[in-house]
């Protein structure tokens, strides 16, 4: 399925991302360097683990809960929260929060609106004016805001800072990290104080931003997949509804045809039932697989196979004595008439072909085109057998019906000449299973 390959793409992308994890940049003593490399290693392991886990999640909420849990285990802070934007509600809502010391913000309790200073800062990308990584540290904000106050210049980014600091204080955030995907601010990570009371290192902050990038990617992918699944379900429901309506229309049409002919009353319904029973035995054949939707084509074609009888005069249809040659020719026209009726309907193009050919014999002696063997459409060959069985087991004005066993024998006798032998085998199988039975049995 295409989902799988999408996930594989993300996995590869993540793997590359992990390989290119944040590097050094500051002058350090050997000891510090060693310590730092060790810490870096931990984060690398963490990132690898995180990227592996991210792929398992198909619901954004689950993904976020997993990430918050992982960060909580890796970076011990008083509190971590993740807010994401809700398209429907128009604000950022809290998806998860974890806190070791009573700092946990209850899920669903708070929101950040679009005019929130922190959201505005991130949304308008003003954060990059004060931080290379885009992450915001509360202490830095307070310092920058103080310096800026003295300078007395106009700049939205700096004007916002006191409010941003206030918002971070409200959320008990030491660090806030934006989660961007393309141009959109998908969410905000909030990190509380470290339990060790130490400041966050540049290393840790760059780890957060790398993680936020990965989260954005995974998040937008889960979102994409969810949207896609919703769409597929929607289309499916629509299709089902339309299909049901279509089948019912076909059934009504068939009933209208049947109603004109007292002798063939219920004929269409029975032929459809027999044809479906035969089809059940052979739906795995390559011939059946060639149809984009074999069962449905068969079902509709069977329902509509006699629709052309609409063009046969009542006097002929209901005649109780033997038909003259001309009258019989008139009746034979019904398969062509049926195809002519159905042909203009684009969705029924294939059905028209089947209806036209439902009196073609396997040996080429049928009508209207004298098609032979495999040139006769497969569905038409099935309907022909089903149609014949019903004709033999039903009363006609000019003869009495025969019992099923006689009809079965007649069909068997004509296997390979009148009928395709594969279809006859399937017919016999279905009959033996009790799935083909006339009213009189």
């Amino acid at each position, binding site marked *: 399925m295409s989902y799988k390959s999408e996930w594989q793409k993300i996995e590869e992308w993540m793997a590359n991302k992990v390989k290119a994890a944040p590097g050094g940049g500051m002058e350090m003593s050997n000891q510090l360097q060693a310590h730092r490399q060790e810490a870096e290693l931990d984060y690398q392991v963490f990132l690898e683990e995180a990227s592996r886990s991210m792929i398992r999640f198909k619901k954004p909420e689950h993904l976020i809960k997993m990430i918050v849990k992982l960060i909580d285990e890796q970076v011990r802070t008083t509190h971590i929260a993740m807010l994401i934007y809700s398209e429907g509600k128009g*604000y950022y*809502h*809290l998806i998860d929060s974890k806190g070791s010391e*009573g*700092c*946990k*913000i*209850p899920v*669903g*309790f*708070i*929101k*950040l*609106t679009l005019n*929130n200073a922190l959201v505005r800062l991130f949304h308008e990308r003003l954060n990059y004016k004060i931080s290379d990584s885009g992450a915001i540290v509360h202490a830095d904000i307070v310092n920058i805001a103080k310096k800026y106050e003295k300078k007395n210049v106009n700049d939205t980014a700096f004007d916002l800072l006191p409010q941003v600091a*206030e*918002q971070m204080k*409200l*959320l008990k955030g030491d660090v806030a990290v934006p989660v961007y995907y393309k141009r959109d601010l998908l969410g905000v990570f909030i990190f509380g104080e470290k339990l060790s009371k130490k400041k966050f290192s540049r290393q840790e902050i760059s780890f957060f931003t790398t993680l936020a990038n990965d989260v954005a990617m995974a998040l937008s992918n889960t979102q994409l997949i969810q949207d896609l699944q919703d769409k597929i379900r929607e289309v499916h429901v629509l299709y089902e509804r339309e299909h049901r309506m279509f089948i019912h229309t076909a059934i009504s049409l068939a009933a209208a045809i049947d109603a004109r002919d007292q002798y063939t009353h219920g004929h269409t319904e029975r032929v459809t039932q027999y044809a479906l029973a035969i089809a059940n035995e052979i739906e795995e054949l390559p011939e059946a697989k060639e149809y984009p939707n074999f069962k449905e084509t068969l079902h509709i074609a069977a329902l509509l196979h006699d629709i052309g009888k609409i063009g046969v005069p009542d006097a002929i249809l209901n005649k109780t004595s033997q038909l003259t040659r001309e009258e019989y020719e008139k009746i034979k026209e019904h398969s062509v008439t049926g195809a002519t009726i159905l042909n203009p309907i684009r969705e029924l193009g294939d059905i028209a072909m089947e209806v036209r050919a439902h009196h073609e014999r396997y040996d080429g002696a049928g009508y209207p085109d004298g098609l032979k063997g495999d040139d006769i459409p497969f569905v038409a060959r099935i309907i022909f057998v089903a149609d014949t069985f019903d004709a033999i087991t039903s009363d006609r004005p000019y003869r009495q019906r025969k019992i099923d066993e006689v009809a079965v024998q007649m069909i068997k006798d004509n296997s390979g000449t009148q009928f395709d032998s594969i279809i006859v085998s399937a017919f016999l199988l279905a009959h033996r299973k009790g799935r083909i039975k006339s009213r009189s049995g």
Partner: protein
Amino acid sequence: MIKIMIVDDETEICDFVQSFFKERNFDVVTANNGREALVLAEMQNPDIILLDLKMPVMDGMETLKELKKRCYQGKVVMVTAVEDMGKIDEARSYGVAEYITKPLVLGQLAKIVLKLAGEHSLSS
């Protein structure tokens, strides 16, 4: 020190709001339902009550009626879900000073409560 009582059946909310107002120099008590709140209101006489509307045992509206009956003198802030906005008018008739809807904006919660606290310290 201003005393605030938080009434909510969700312990997590009580804990969070408690620490939120403690940091802002309030004296905080919490209750998990209306009945508890009534007992505590009598014993502790809080200046402000933050009252959740939807609670088991005794809901916010019942609690409010009881408080009025008992001539409670402090201020009540009603906390409701957006879908319960329709009950605000009824709550006002029982003397609710302010209301706030969940999910709430933290800054707004602080502002409302600080405003009421200011009014309180002015009047006393």
